[in-house]
């Protein structure tokens, strides 16, 4: 295995990390506000199909991203209404959203199976600087990427800053920890939760768009292939922290890319595919002690509907 193989694994890995990062950033915000949305896969696939169709018909990949974001928000609001206003079971609602998205996207996309996006309608790697791309091993991975790759990192840093350094962040985190405390101080718990759920949908839609207009510019049924679930695992792996999500996303992405490449060397791809989940289990186990949970565990009110005045 020479250096170019490693370089390629990193490049492919970082490329496939972008949708994981985007989707899990959205889920981090939703969960921080107390809403568990297992519908990431469904929102992502709807984003993918709508972005593909938009880009194919208009020839504008950015318009595709915009439409996918909007579709993601609409999808997430279904979950929002069920879990915030109707106080339904968030696990059931999220799972239903995933199934709904997978089914609806294949109906909508039936006519488009097998099309490729023309070059002008898709994102192409835009090297930031030719000189940097030539850096050994990491040059391609870091500097030969599509615009959404850079955008996702900017979003992650901004979301981290908002969550930990601003009042908005305190409001969101408090809503997910103890909504009654937030409510007693005049915070609109429902509004915060809808906003965070919608942001989760927007970023999941954007992640889907990345898949169909940049990563593999075509529409293939079920093309998210479980990435929504990995994004959920990543949310936990990152311990609900946007900066750690960057690290986690590239780790998971490289592991995935490595899986394909290492097959050629006789390693089982299926075992390697399990690695992200294994890593998540390890992090969860390490974080299971009382002190660790207090410092960085799941938001205390995650998955619990809020009703004012109820004990």
């Amino acid at each position, binding site marked *: 295995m020479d250096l170019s193989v490693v370089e390629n694994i990193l490049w492919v890995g970082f490329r496939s990390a972008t949708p994981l990062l985007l989707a899990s950033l959205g889920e981090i915000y939703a969960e921080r506000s107390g809403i568990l949305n297992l519908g990431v896969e469904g929102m992502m696939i709807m984003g993918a199909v709508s972005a593909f169709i938009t880009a194919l018909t208009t020839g504008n990949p950015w318009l595709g991203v915009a439409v996918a974001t909007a579709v993601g928000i609409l999808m997430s609001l279904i979950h929002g209404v069920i879990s915030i206003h109707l106080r339904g079971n968030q696990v059931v609602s999220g799972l239903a959203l995933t199934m709904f998205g997978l089914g609806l996207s294949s109906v909508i996309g039936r006519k488009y199976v097998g099309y490729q996006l023309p070059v002008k309608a898709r994102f192409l790697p835009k090297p930031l600087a030719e000189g940097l791309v030539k850096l050994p091993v990491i040059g391609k991975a870091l500097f030969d990427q599509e615009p959404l790759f850079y955008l996702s990192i900017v979003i992650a840093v901004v979301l981290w800053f908002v969550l930990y350094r601003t009042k908005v962040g305190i409001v969101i985190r*408090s809503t997910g920890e103890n909504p009654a405390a937030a409510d*007693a101080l005049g915070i609109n718990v429902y509004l915060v939760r809808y906003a965070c759920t919608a942001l989760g949908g927007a970023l999941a839609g954007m992640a889907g768009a990345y898949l169909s207009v940049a990563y593999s510019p075509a529409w293939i049924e079920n093309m998210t292939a479980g990435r929504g679930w990995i994004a959920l695992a990543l949310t936990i792996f990152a311990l609900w922290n946007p900066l750690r999500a960057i690290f986690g996303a590239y780790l998971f992405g490289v592991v995935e890319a490595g899986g394909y490449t290492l097959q050629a060397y006789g390693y089982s791809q299926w075992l390697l595919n399990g690695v992200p989940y294994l890593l998540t289990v390890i992090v969860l186990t390490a974080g299971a002690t009382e002190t660790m949970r207090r410092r960085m565990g799941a938001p205390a009110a995650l998955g619990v509907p809020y009703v004012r005045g109820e004990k």
Partner: protein
Amino acid sequence: MASEATAVASEPRETDLLVKMVSIVKRFPGVLANDHVNFELRPGEVHALLGENGAGKTTLMNILYGIYHPDGGEIYVRGRRVEIRSPRDAMSLGIGMVHQHFMLVDRHTVAENIALGYAKSLMNPLKEIKEKLREFAEKYGLKVDPDAYIWQLSAGEQQRVEIIKALYHGADILILDEPTSVLTPQETKELFKIVERMRDEGKGIIFITHKLDEVFEVADRVTVMRRGKVVGTLKASETTKEELARMMVGREVLFRLEKERVSRGKPVLEVENLHALNDRGLPAVRGVSFRVHEGEIFGIAGVAGNGQRELAEVVVGLRKATAGRVLIDGVDVTNKSPRFISSKGVAHIPEERLRHGIVPNLSVAENLILKDYYKEPYRRGLLLDHSKVIEDAERLINKFDIVTPSPLTPAKLLSGGNIQRLICARELHKEPRLIVAAHPTYGLDVGATEYIRRILLEQRKRGAAVLLISEDLEEVLQLSDRVGVMFNGEIVGIVRPEEVSIEEIGLMMAGARRLAREEMAS
């Protein structure tokens, strides 16, 4: 019945009143929680709102704070008619509330909890908060570390954060909902000092309580509620404990429980050099030894978090001992299963009755057989003998005066007092040898408290040994034959209540005094 005895010459004008609530009505399904209630608050007064649990005090104040909407009546704040639709409305009217259950985010710091509602700057909001906190520390003696996490704070400190939150936005109407229920005697004194300072500044303070002594310690006026109605408003200086108690309960109440002399038998519970860890894996019980005999109530006094809970849990088998022994009637039960220990005649009245005492969604009848469902006569092969379950439940409901619509009602719908009766019925009807009772009257009203205490004394008379853990010092001293004071996981003194002053126990609870082995009452 007390009249409006306060109509004296200095009656303030309507517009001077901070709050006037007129004919407030609030209905909940099946209950009239507030029945045409009138209430007023003047500037510079501490107004106690006294009543048993379920009398409607907290409901009334939740209406004033915008958590509930009244079904009828009018509210005036500083003479102006207002509609309070949410806590936000209340806050903008200068109303602050310290809830009985603190509304704090455990995993956030003090500063973050305050910034949640009040930070003006969007970026780096904690800086302004910390500056303001220093100001409060000086002005009211409200000292608290802004960078400490809430979960690291004692109940008294957490309460201080709540008061700061209320003052932060300039509240001059402050509602304190049973503020002393979680405090030590010393912390309570400090709270009263803070309350007085706020009163002297001209703020109006509403002090919800069901403890009569506090009315006389801190209040200027007192409004008594019973069953959703106001019984009367009195000046604290012009009334007596007995009168208030009668207004509150609607009948005479005995303050001194008749404690008969019971001759002490052989030891039932023997704890020898016991060690155990708390949930965080730190030592919580550190070398505790004592005995409880037949016909004896052994009280454990101490500030919450000094190992009492862990001690009780080890005795009933819910927590592993790391060293030492627990014997019941001479049989070593250390680290045996709860079922085994229960079969040796140990009853457990746990703390947090809703979480540990019952299964809230199961029916009253099912809750009554939680310890016996797997045995005859309830077991019939793989099934339960349902009619036998109901039959026995009805018998216990009658015997222990549990007020429930039916044996099939989910236990969570019962009032606190009736849930505690249910637990007593389940634990005590088989005449146990040892009763471990943790905070058995916590949060109960006067009537239910009296009932539970009487039951414990009856069990003592019957010859049971009772291990009583309570933060209500008065209760421990009244009921116990001997009291062990716990501090930092150790028993620092064993005393007889009649031979010791409350101050001395307070010193031991605070760790400032420790008895030598030979000074301990045996």
